């Protein structure tokens, strides 16, 4: 069937900010969709509030709305754009839920907009658990299965706790609780006790937008599988990929270590899953596109149950696309506009059609990345609620190779088995006990248990059902380990076998201390000529010739790197998403690829994050899906450089490390020492900015101010420094990422406590003690600097919260909203001095604090920052593209002449009437619970905790801020009760904003101290007791928990344990109740402006293309 001709304009809905359970995989899928639709001549409008996405680059759509993905705003877009259809199946649960809401509100009908990809009935059938059960049973009947009702776990949908209890009385504990219509398994869990049941089911009922939970027979410990399917409108169905979870049922698939293809199914069993998957897909009625179905298989008797299906592209489909080379989202977009699978060519072979099932001649392993260290108190047990913040994928020619590569891709302290010593004193008994609770890095525990003498059967039992085949693979590694340890010398044969098993030089070095560490192993390996080859991901196990250079390393006979004589540039990506290093860095890497490709270089991408656009094989000329470790990167460089030179070309002319965040930056010096041509800012210059003493000298030479500081290795030293520079002080370990371990300390006892907790402290790793500038305005600057020392200010961002909150977590505005012209002059002078002093060749990010009209330098990072995409979108200047060109030798003057940068002016000279962009961070507190099941503290501090960000852009600050809040949290309230409890030092600043809220008609509720101050200023308010004060009726926490409050304003007390803990109870209640919670005075002031804008009701939407035209006209 050919393409539909009646679809001329399609609105694509994105997935908004990166949150746990919904990450940049939807940028990957959405970007593919936009590309496909436009290449088909269809007008594309797009809504997505996330500025760090490639899809929101203005060239990917005809009209790009960086606006909140809420029914309210999407309706405004529909009214303005009048599309023929909406494609909502590529934007995750956010897009799908928004589409359903628009349908229910009658908006789609009102504007005559068709929902393509999946219809409302299919969405409901897929997502409504009761309907879905019936669907599966029907599919079973159609297939002639003996016990169709047994194809789903026995279960019942409940709408109240009474119903829940009655159901459990029948099914018995444990049971699984799953709320309807939530993403990433939010609110679901397993109840073993009546207390668990009350808590999880209660939370689940409130988390579900339809107040519905499913109580279900436990299939804990069963084998878990997923199939990724595609269907076209001619009812052709293909299975793109099978995925097996190593962690059995009970751990969310997003938190499980998974393998593709399925490893432990016979054909008979696999085909039953396939038949069932296809039958369910047909019964659900997904018209066209991708869908994912999860199964559990009882390891004892092979009984299969269908767990769930997503009638849309999902995180797993991104993984499946990268794992197989079959681009699900791209094909889904084509199917949505009417093509059938047999009409679409296979992207990789070009000769065969997409109507086939990829076959793999390699193994893919995905490992989730967690961030529990960021959330003290959060329960790290893995459950059916997803908690991971990112993932890495790897490919190998066998399971252990892929597993070892994935483990070293995680960039955690351990880089694979044996890379760090076992914890002191562990026993087999401890280890087996630890296995019983699913946790991050459980395969390390598995390995240790086997090595300490447990049998495969014992480990299978203790781990709750990990398949013996996987355990045997790890046992084989342990046998190899023994051989390596015992061998008199590491000869070529043994070394080759070790490499084929996936062991890194670093792992081998740990086993053979005499080899002088990783470098020694590498020297030996190169001398024995044991080097990797590179195979191709081709969808067809080499049956047909592949045209796409998508490679992975392995130790085999033959390499498939096609020689090329063009000048090549390697761009190193940023690895798994984690807090502090997310999609923003991938965005910059993709831009570098685009800029360098169009400048005539052959671009080579190296990355291991399957969610990203950078690892789409369409992005760079060549893609290496490899861990970002020194060893793996060095080998890729060698393969590309030597094949390029052999072809008579210059080989690799540069390796770009500045754009992928700390990960590639950390490799720069070693790569350079090994002869790799690092371009852009030199490793020595990077060191100048990162090493405190050296950087201090740079500042001193230029006469720039920085807060007073010192370094301490003990409490006494720290106290001496604190006494000298005065409290409050900012303390942190000397080597930090994303503000890890950073705290603001106001007094001696807290300082003593901090030093006591800092376990890694040593003369090599001192604690840094800085004067903390209270009540300062924090300013973030992104700038470019070229080899001539010419500086281009990309943008000056003014933080809305005061200094002390990590820049990644605070909201900011661009252009700055309160800074004076003289401040901007000063900022420019400082930035230029730092850029030149450090020797930056590319991007530089500087953080400043402005206190009492004096500018202080907080820190400088000579690399692409998190804010580069935001600044680029807000100013219409592609900073990362310019940085990549500068790294390869272009000057700012040349880039201005070329038009990549504006001919005159820069981001520091924006016109007064420029649109205001507000960046707001999105925080994951809702995802976590303490072991006791309580919410965790949502207080912000110098340690970054956000997973993503949104942008609100409009002609004035109030509107832009309101949009940013709608996009990040759902909308700010326009009526209702506001709870206020602020620290003493904040009481003054809070009076005016609260008064304004009272004037706007909000009811104010406050705790005693705050209430007293407010009343003295004539603000009527209801007084409520604190949580720990005795009394009758509601306290602050129960009032919030009961859902009677629309907004919480709570600033933390600087000291005093009980005030702090009450604040914690209040904030965690707000998190649990899903109410906006503002924790700073400037935040409250901004919220008031946003609320006013909402009450006025004059919100408008405007495409980025129009806003950029205004900006360009002004340049």
């Amino acid at each position, binding site marked *: 069937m050919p393409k539909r001709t009646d679809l001329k304009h399609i609105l694509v809905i994105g997935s908004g900010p990166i949150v746990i359970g919904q990450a940049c995989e939807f940028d990957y899928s959405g970007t593919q969709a936009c590309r496909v639709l436009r290449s088909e001549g269809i007008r594309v409008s797009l809504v997505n509030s996330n500025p760090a996405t490639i899809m929101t680059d203005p060239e990917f759509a005809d009209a790009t709305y960086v606006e909140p993905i809420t029914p309210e705003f999407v309706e405004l877009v529909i009214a303005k754009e009048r599309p023929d259809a909406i494609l909502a199946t590529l934007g995750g649960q956010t897009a799908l839920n928004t589409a359903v809401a628009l349908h229910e509100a009658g908006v789609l009908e009102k504007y005559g907009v068709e929902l393509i990809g999946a219809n409302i009935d299919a969405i409901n059938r897929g997502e409504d658990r009761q309907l879905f059960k019936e669907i599966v049973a029907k599919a079973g009947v159609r297939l002639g299965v003996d016990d169709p009702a047994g194809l789903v776990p026995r279960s019942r949908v409940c709408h109240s706790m009474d119903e829940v209890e009655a159901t459990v009385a029948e099914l018995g504990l444990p049971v699984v609780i799953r709320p309807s219509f939530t993403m990433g398994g939010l609110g679901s869990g397993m109840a073993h006790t009546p207390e668990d049941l009350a808590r999880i089911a209660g939370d689940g009922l409130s988390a579900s937008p339809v107040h519905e939970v499913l109580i279900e027979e436990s299939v804990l410990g069963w084998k878990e599988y997923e199939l990724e399917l595609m269907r076209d409108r*001619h009812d*052709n169905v293909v299975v793109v990929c099978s995925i097996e979870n190593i962690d059995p049922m009970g751990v969310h698939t997003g938190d499980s270590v998974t393998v593709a*293809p*399925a*490893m*432990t*199914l*016979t*054909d*008979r*069993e*696999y*085909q039953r899953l*396939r*038949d069932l998957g296809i039958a369910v897909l047909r019964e659900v009625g997904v018209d066209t596109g991708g869908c994912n179905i999860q199964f559990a298989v009882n*390891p*004892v008797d*092979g009984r299969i149950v269908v767990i769930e299906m997503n009638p849309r592209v999902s995180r797993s489909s991104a993984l499946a696309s990268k794992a197989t080379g079959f681009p699900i989202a791209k094909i889904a977009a084509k199917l949505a506009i009417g093509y*059938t*699978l*047999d009409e679409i060519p296979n992207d990789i072979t070009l000769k*065969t*059609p997409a*109507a*086939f*099932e*990829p*076959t*793999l*001649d390699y*193994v893919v392993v995905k490992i989730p990345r967690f961030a529990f260290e960021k959330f003290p108190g959060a329960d790290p047990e893995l459950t059916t609620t997803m908690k991971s913040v990112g993932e890495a994928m790897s490919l190998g*020619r*066998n*399971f*252990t190779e892929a597993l070892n590569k994935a483990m070293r891709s995680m960039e955690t302290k351990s880089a694979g088995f044996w890379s760090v010593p076992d914890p002191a004193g562990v026993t087999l008994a401890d280890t087996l006990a630890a296995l019983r609770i699913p946790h991050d890095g459980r395969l390390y525990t598995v390995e240790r248990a086997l090595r300490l003498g447990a049998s*495969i059967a014992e480990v299978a039992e203790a781990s709750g059902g990990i*398949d*013996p*085949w996987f355990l*045997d693979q790890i046992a*084989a*590694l342990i*046998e*190899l380990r023994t*051989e390596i340890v015992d061998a008199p010398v590491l000869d070529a*044969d043994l070394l080759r*076998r070790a490499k*084929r*098993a996936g062991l890194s030089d670093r792992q081998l070095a740990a086993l053979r201390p005499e080899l002088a560490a990783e470098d020694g192993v590498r020297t030996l390996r190169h001398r024995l000529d044991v080097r990797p080859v590179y*195979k191709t991901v081709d969808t*067809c*196990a*080499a*049956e*047909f*010739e592949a045209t796409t250079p998508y490679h992975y390393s392995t130790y*085999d*006979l*033959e390499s*498939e790197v096609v020689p090329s004589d063009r000048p090549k540039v390697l761009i190193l990506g940023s690895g798994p998403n984690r807090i502090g290093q997310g999609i923003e860095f991938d965005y910059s890497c993709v831009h570098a690829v685009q800029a360098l490709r169009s400048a005539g270089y052959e671009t080579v991408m190296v990355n291991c994050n399957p969610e990203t656009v950078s690892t789409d094989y369409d992005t760079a000329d060549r893609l290496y899906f490899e861990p970002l470790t020194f060893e793996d990167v060095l080998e890729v460089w060698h393969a590309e450089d030597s094949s390029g030179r052999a072809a008579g070309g210059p080989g690799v002319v540069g390796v770009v490390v500045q754009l992928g965040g700390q990960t590639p930056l950390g490799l720069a010096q070693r790569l350079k020492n090994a002869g790799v041509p690092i371009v852009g800012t030199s490793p020595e210059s990077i060191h100048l900015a990162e090493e405190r003493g050296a950087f201090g000298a740079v500042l001193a030479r230029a006469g720039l101010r920085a807060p007073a500081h010192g370094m301490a290795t003990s409490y006494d030293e720290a106290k001496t420094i604190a006494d000298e520079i005065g409290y409050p002080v900012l303390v942190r370990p000397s080597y930090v990422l994303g503000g890890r371990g950073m705290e603001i300390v106001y007094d001696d006892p807290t300082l003593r406590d901090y030093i006591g907790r800092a376990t890694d402290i040593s003369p090599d790793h001192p604690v840094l003690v800085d004067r903390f500038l209270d009540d300062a305005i924090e300013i973030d600057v992104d700038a470019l600097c070229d080899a001539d020392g010419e500086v281009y200010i990309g943008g000056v961002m003014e933080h809305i919260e005061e200094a002390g909150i990590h820049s990644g977590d605070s909201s900011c505005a661009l252009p700055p909203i309160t800074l004076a012209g003289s401040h901007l002059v000063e900022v420019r002078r400082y930035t230029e001095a730092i850029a030149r002093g450090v020797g930056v060749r590319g991007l530089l990010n500087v953080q400043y604090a402005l206190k009492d009209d004096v500018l202080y330098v907080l820190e400088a990072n000579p690399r692409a920052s998190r804010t580069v995409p935001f600044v680029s979108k807000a100013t219409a200047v592609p900073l990362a593209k310019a940085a990549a060109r500068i790294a390869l030798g272009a000057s700012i003057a040349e880039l201005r002449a070329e038009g990549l940068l504006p001919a005159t002016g820069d981001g520091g000279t924006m016109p007064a009437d420029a649109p205001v962009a507000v960046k707001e961070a999105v925080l994951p507190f809702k995802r976590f619970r303490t072991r006791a099941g309580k919410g965790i503290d949502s207080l912000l501090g110098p340690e970054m905790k956000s997973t993503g960000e949104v942008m609100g852009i409009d002609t004035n600050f109030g509107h832009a801020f309101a949009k940013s809040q709608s996009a990040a949290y759902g909308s700010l309230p326009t009526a209702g009760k506001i709870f206020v409890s602020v620290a003493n030092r904040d009481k003054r600043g809070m009076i005016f904003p609260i008064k304004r809220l009272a004037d706007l008609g909000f009811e104010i509720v406050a705790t005693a101290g705050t209430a007293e101050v407010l009343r003295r200023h004539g603000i009527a308010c209801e007084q409520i007791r604190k949580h720990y004060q005795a009394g009758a009726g509601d306290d602050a926490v129960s009032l919030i928990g009961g859902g009677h409050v629309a907004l919480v304003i709570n600033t933390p007390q600087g000291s005093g344990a009980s005030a702090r803990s009450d604040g914690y109870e209040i904030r965690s209640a707000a998190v649990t109740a899903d109410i906006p919670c503002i924790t700073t005075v400037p935040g409250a002031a901004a919220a008031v402006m946003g609320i006013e804008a909402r009450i006025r009701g004059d919100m408008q939407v405007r495409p980025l293309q129009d806003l950029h035209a205004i900006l360009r006209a002004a340049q």
Partner: protein
Amino acid sequence: MVKRRPAILVLEDGRTFPGEAYGSVGETFGEAVFNTGMTGYQETLTDPSYHRQVVVQTAPHIGNTGVNGEDDESGRIWVAGYVVRDPARIGSNWRATGGLEDRLATEGVVGISGVDTRALTRHLRERGAMRVGISSIDNDPQSLLARVRQAPQMVGADLSAEVSTAEPYVVEALGEHRFTVAALDLGIKRNVPRRLATRGVTTHVLPASSSIDQMLATGADAIFLSPGPGDPATADAPVELAREALRREVPLFGICFGSQILGRALGFGTYKLGYGHRGINQPVLDRVTGKVEVTSHNHGFAVQVPGSGDGAVVPDQVIDTDFGGVRVSHVCLNDNVVEGLRAVDLPAFTVQYHPEAAAGPHDADYLFDRFAELIEGRTHSKGRSNA
């Protein structure tokens, strides 16, 4: 990962691959072919169509689920040799009765592991299927190469007698008996009579040398031509049998080798594909419904109809033959190879691929329904004309 005994694989063009002994230690020769299925190694090994072939598995891990009682497609392993990259040390499945390597050793199947199977597959793709030797007793490539070059070729090989049943046997219908089919065993797989049985068909499986009269003497309502190994150009007797069935208007269905036999009976030629179709992910277009099915393939030869071959799209029109009009009912979307024939004027159709799957997807299972409908139509109209 523990070291095994060294072994080598040598192709007839001299390319040599090092590896390690797998299965039985010894030496073996055959035609090197690659199979791209990610599941179903046991079905593959026991498929008689792989007789005299050395199978290269592109899936890197083989043996993960051990050996499972119900999964054999015949009474023994047929492959002449087995090439894998990473053999499993243990088989893990609730139905498993043993490990794969033990089974290979017990049945004397010489294999090689640790081979760069992808490089080997790419070589076969570029140069075509060719003879190969595996040895874990002689590690000298030159001496092995000399023996490889003496091994018999697949072109011109008549292998039906070697794989066929010696004695007839019957597979009873499940449930109500509706029809009887006589199957000519040229290397039949167990799942064919099983799939027929679910349609109420009792299958009499007869030796390859059987005559049409012997077949019809079973009381058969229809004839089935089975899959099997070898060069269809040599299968003169089955071709003649098929012609006779056409003349007598006996309903006829054939799979794979059986399809090539019908092709020849209709007057078409057959030819050897460069490297064949062996896998369970092949897209086939059913020209009757316009739908695509994902199918199981195992064929190194194909039927040549006028206008087919070299990737050219086969015209969708009635081709005149001695037996009336014939249509190409199915084509492979990867390379436009003829995958199914349907007589327009006679009750006969065949497919080149494997609707019985095992291993592979069940998308084409409907063809057994078509066969049952064909038989029903004929017996029904026959009954009426007799009345």
